[in-house]
């Protein structure tokens, strides 16, 4: 998908023909965004939805994403589930074991912000307290579509990012949320 747009951007019209000028950084960003290998790392309920996302119905492999069990070969860590104080050091360690450039998706309310366990003493209120999170996927648990949307957002973010300053992106404005027109009864 992204390839064609990239190519069109890189096309420069000169007299007598067109030249393809693709910047190296663009190519690198394209490679990174098209091949995000994820760490096999589930914590709780959201992990089941993460597995369902990787399974036949939603098929993460379409986006070139598959699960590697070792952090050394993973690009993106999907923290799926609540993180207890006992578990947090391990997540930090796993994050540190991943090679740069690395990304984190916080899946579910618990990983993003503590979720329903906000008044529990043992749950960390969001993994962004100790690892930098790129995309938050809210929901309890988020539908597989929701996770895929988060992955697509991360892809856009990678495409836009510059080589040197990974985390210096301005935060985008929240896009409008679609509210159904007719009130479907609950």
């Amino acid at each position, binding site marked *: 998908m992204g390839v064609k747009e990239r190519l069109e951007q890189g096309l420069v019209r000169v007299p007598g023909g067109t030249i393809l000028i693709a910047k190296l950084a663009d190519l690198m960003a394209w490679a990174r965004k098209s091949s995000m290998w994820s760490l096999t790392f589930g914590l*709780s*309920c959201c992990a089941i939805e993460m*597995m*369902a996302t990787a399974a*036949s119905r939603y098929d993460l492999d379409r986006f070139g994403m598959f699960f590697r069990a070792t952090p050394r070969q993973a690009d993106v860590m999907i923290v799926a*589930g609540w993180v207890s104080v006992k578990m947090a050091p391990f997540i930090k360690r796993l994050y540190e074991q991943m090679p740069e450039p690395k990304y984190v998706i916080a899946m579910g309310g618990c990983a993003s912000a503590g979720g329903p366990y906000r008044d*529990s003493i043992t749950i960390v209120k969001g993994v962004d307290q100790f690892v930098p999170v790129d995309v938050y996927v809210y929901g309890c648990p988020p539908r597989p579509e929701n996770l895929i949307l988060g992955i697509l957002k991360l892809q856009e973010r990678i495409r836009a990012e510059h080589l040197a300053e990974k985390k210096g992106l301005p935060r985008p404005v929240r896009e409008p949320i679609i509210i159904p027109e007719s009130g479907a009864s609950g």
Partner: protein
Amino acid sequence: MSMPVSPEKQSTLSTVDILSQGMVINVGPQHPSTHGVLRLILTLDGEQILHCEPVIGYLHRGLEKMMERRPYRHNVPFTDRLDYLAALSNNLGICQCIERLGGVEVPERAQYIRVLLMELQRIASHLVFLGTFGTDLGATTMFLYAFRERELVLDLLEECTGARLTYNWIRVGGVPDDLPEGFGEKVLGFVKTFRQRLEEYDQLLTRNRIFRSRTQGIGILPKELALAYGTSGPVIRASGMAYDVRKAAPYEVYDRVEFDVPVHEQGDVWARYLVRMEEMRQSIRIIEQVLRDIPDGPVQTKLPKVFKPPAGIAYSRIESPRGELSFMMVSDGSPNPLRVHIRAPSFVNLSVLPSLLEGTKVADLVAILGSIDVVLGEIDR
């Protein structure tokens, strides 16, 4: 995973005989086959396991204490996140407990709906077992087939309850809404497909010689040991004990439907696998009977806005896909429970793991752990 020796690990090292020269290896908390965040500290001699020490608590969130701080009915959605593969079973467990505490009657139709949903949930849960068990043994395709069929169950449950995983569709005094239009036909359609797919699973996995040699005679749990540890569910039924709460202490309308309790004598991984496969077939039988017999009527008992059960103590037990799931609640007459206790089947079943693992190979570890089918959310609470 190489880690600096933490105080925790040092204490572990002292528990095993250092002179045995075993290699200590950490399986988990992040490991593809620990089914969540279980950590096993293994002492290995080559490929053989000398000693195993499970470490749990990585998902602990103090749920029982949290429940004491909330009114009774607000606790129901939290049980979804206990055993997240069988959320409806947990809903039913706590609702039964509260109903017993408050003396609430459940309409007959609601009871039938509960049984129907419970069996659909059992199929979904066992399919996750089948898939993850297959992956653990290397049959990755089985995982995707099982999840493919699980999506069909989830579609049904989603249509009825409005959620995919955490349903919260069983309430104190019944179910919140009737079955949707044409639900019975859809379930029957699914049952028809699922029967054929079960045959396929047998052809792909059960009859496979490699699968059999990986599971037969591995991780044998004798009947006495199973009883001594207090295991339940498929684990004890595979050890030759015909114990099923649905038969032993029938709840809802389980005494009105006909089904068999699959029992195997061997007590090995293979037997546990077979018991679960057979249970899915029995669930289909129950579903068909329920859809045939379901009466008309209301689905919910009216309850006051603020639900205050009289002071007392109540205990309920149900057969969740993992075994006997029990809730105990103590009431002092206030809107909040005084004490909640959850007897999680996975917790008890996991406790037999060290005795099963001793003397087996590393490769058998995943088979045995997979066959016990634990859910860590339930163990840590």
